[in-house]
């Protein structure tokens, strides 16, 4: 989160709401470390990354839903263990959990 924190605060100073996603659990092989983070603001601008590009698109959708609808923080899992063969997965074969919240702290 270190890398995107200054930009997150800038968004807030300019009055833009944003959602933050952080990697909080890794199982097996994963491209980014615990704490890797990305953020999406209400204008759809994106910062940071949580994988090697495999799931960022899906994270943007989750983040927008959080900003537009129910703002309750939540944990979302991504990985090959999903039953749905079309679910967004990680090419490296691992599973990661992301914690998503509105950046209001």
């Amino acid at each position, binding site marked *: 989160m270190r890398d995107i*924190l200054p930009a997150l605060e800038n968004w807030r100073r300019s009055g833009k709401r944003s959602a933050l996603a952080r990697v909080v659990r890794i199982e097996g092989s994963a491209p980014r470390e615990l704490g890797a983070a990305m953020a999406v603001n209400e204008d759809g601008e994106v910062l940071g990354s949580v994988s090697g590009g495999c799931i960022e698109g899906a994270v943007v959708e989750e983040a927008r839903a959080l900003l537009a609808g129910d703002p309750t923080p939540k944990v979302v899992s991504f990985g090959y263990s999903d039953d749905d063969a079309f679910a967004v997965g990680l090419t490296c074969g691992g599973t990661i959990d992301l914690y998503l919240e509105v950046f209001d702290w």
Partner: protein
Amino acid sequence: MDRTDREISSALSLAIESNLAVALATVIDGAAVGAKLLVFADAARGADLGSLGNPELTRVVARDARGELAAGRSVTRHYGAQGQARQTELTVFIESFAPPPEMWIFGAVDFTGALVGIARNLGYRVTVCDARPIFATRERFPDAHELVNLWPHELLEQQGDRLGERDAICVLTHDPKFDVPAVQAALETRVGYIGCMGSRRTHEERNRRLIEAGADPIQLQRVMSPIGLDLGARSPAETAISICAEIIALRYGRPVRSLRDTRGSIHGES
């Protein structure tokens, strides 16, 4: 509520900018999801900020966060509602923000500029130290975080205490006048990596002088010399990569060939 919460992200930013070690604990599942606690490694530099709701839970997580921070680790842990171990009502993510590791480069030579660039990309705070003010200039090393005009052993004697396992010293002077006291002083610190540039002959000669100067041959095994992996590197950029790759391989304990453990020519034929 907004005001207190805002203080947490501002305090976190400020701590990171000030190179303080802090950890941020967030309840990610269970009652009080989203609650946060910012913990300072050194209580004298900042009081813990925020709360996870239950005072006992807050106390237990603060203690655990300090432990994780000391190891530079981030982790997700489970607790009972009052912080009990072996219960799973709450899930807490503890993210450690340790200050960046340091690389001290001795010698303002051609290779130094390339090494500064790569080390910076790897997240090091980079100091270039050379006793000759005309070489260690801001114009030549615009990307270095700090430039020091001292003999390397003087810098080590003044500030070497702060170096630890994650930090690195790269001796690029390949001049025995500077190298010998620099390596001797580096061996007095707890720095995790010491590498020393030079040809195989320079290496032999330097080791001989170091032993004459009283260096312990067993301690000398800490020194990676000639510095870098056996990649056949020639240019400053290639050499910088071979040095940084050696540091990465040693950190993760991977069996790759360092120049120290091979024979034959250091540079590849093109």
